[in-house]
């Protein structure tokens, strides 16, 4: 393989990592609080607000049911507004984040649902405020589940980021399409696939390890 090819591969790897890392971070920052709101505003929970809960639920479901490829194209005007362009790695981060936020929200919601309500009740009996219950009970108790959920999110993002290549987002997926597929470079195709598999493996193992360390059950 030529020197150029190798440089291209490294550049693509970096782009993928960058897209996934930034959109993963953004989706966690917005998705985790959203997941907390989804669970705590449930009927009978600490911040019961069924109206808000229903509205959020509908929005999250709508966002989740839109296929990524369509979402990506549909929000181009919004992307342009936000980053000034609809092409490139930064532009790809917008649809990636928007797709991942509701995903994270649901995953966090279901992780928090696993926390035994008795423990929440015990904290209430000790005079804990809703805020203290969230930060000192719900999140620490559900942390292994949340970590596994975020791992899943990152892996999905690696997959989605390949599609982002379609709008000029760059990354390994883009490389595989342009060189491996369109220019019949089977070697490039193979190596990008191998790198993607390795990436997913590393993310999954790290996530599993961290979750296992945090799980005291």
């Amino acid at each position, binding site marked *: 393989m030529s020197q150029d090819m190798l440089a291209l591969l490294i550049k693509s790897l970096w782009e993928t990592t960058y897209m996934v890392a930034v959109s993963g971070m953004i989706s966690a920052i917005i998705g985790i609080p959203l997941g907390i709101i989804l669970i705590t505003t449930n009927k009978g929970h600490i911040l019961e607000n069924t109206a808000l809960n229903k509205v959020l639920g509908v929005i999250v479901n709508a966002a989740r049911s839109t296929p990524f490829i369509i979402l990506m194209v549909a929000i181009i005007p919004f992307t342009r507004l936000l980053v000034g362009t609809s092409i490139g790695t930064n532009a790809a981060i917008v649809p990636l984040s928007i797709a991942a936020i509701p995903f994270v929200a649901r995953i966090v919601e279901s992780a928090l649902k696993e926390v*035994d309500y*008795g*423990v929440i*009740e*015990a*904290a*209430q*009996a*000790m*005079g*804990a*405020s809703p805020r*203290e219950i969230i930060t*000192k*009970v719900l999140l*620490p*108790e559900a*942390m292994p589940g949340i970590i596994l959920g975020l791992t899943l999110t990152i892996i999905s993002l690696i997959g989605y980021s390949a599609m982002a290549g379609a709008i000029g987002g760059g990354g390994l997926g883009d490389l595989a399409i342009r060189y491996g597929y369109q220019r019949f470079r089977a070697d490039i195709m193979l190596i990008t696939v191998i790198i993607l598999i390795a990436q997913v493996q590393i993310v999954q193992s790290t996530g599993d390890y961290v979750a296992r360390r*945090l799980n*005291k*059950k």
Partner: protein
Amino acid sequence: MITLDNIEKIYESDNGTVHALKGINLTVSQGEIFGIIGTSGAGKSTLIRCINMLECPTKGSVTVDGQELTTLSEKELREQRKKIGMIFQHFNLLSSRTVYQNIAFPLELAKRSKEEIHTEVMHLLTLVGLADKKDQYPAQLSGGQKQRVGIARALANHPKVLLCDEATSALDPQTTKSILELLKNINREFNLTIVLITHEMQVIKEICNQVAVIENGYIIEQGKVLDVFTQPKENTTKEFISSIISHNLPEFFADLSLSATSTPGSNLMLRLSFIGNSAEDPVISSIIRRFDIDASILHGNIDHIQSTPFGTLIVELSGEQSSLDETLRYLQTRDLGIEVIGYVTRHARITN
């Protein structure tokens, strides 16, 4: 210390309304161990949760340590709750925290300094006998140890009241005993008022001074444990007590034909109940000596309700009718509970 005034609780759900509590009046004095017993679904869980307002009563008022809780704001209520400890059937410990951190949790909520927390937690660990387990996680502990952590956690803020929600129901009998022992010691040492709910009469018998029986959202019977045990009025109460002290005739007697009046040659069957000092009175030997009768003990038990001995005996007395009547009159002058079960005619003398 605790006053519940006409508490009602109604749950509204899609499948209709449930009237869980139907006007509960209850007073618990300082330093008492107050037991509330009922079958599942009787409303006892709801009732104990009303005391610290985990359940908000639909009607009525709750006063703890002179403070009415029903009128407080959320924030004020949280402050008051710090003075009411609570332990649970399933312990409800934080699985992500060590024993030490679990006990420290309420102290963190009370915004105490690290040093204060350390001193307090170490003291509590010794109190409940878990000093060597401080760095373990709840998953590594046995049920009894978990409940000890629960107790230490509940005591951390020096509460005035401790609520026990079926605290021993998930534990085996021996562990139950040791947990009850611990609660009793805490009650004595800190003069802490304890309210507990249970479905096990044994628990009431072991440690309570006062008992209330709850059924269908009503308190059907209430009083000193000894009084309720020795003179239960309601059927439900009798059933609960029968798990420990049988007020029914043993099945062995079921096929005996009893008559209310004496017939020639019939024997008198009596149930004698003893409370306190009279339990040590040698009644049987004294009646045999005084009157020309024979006595067979058919059934009996002696038990202690806390430190008061309490027992029942079922005896069959045989002899001349006049002697039997005299014996009965004599017994009635003694400090005993007497119940004439009836007269029984036997073809042969009891041999067992």
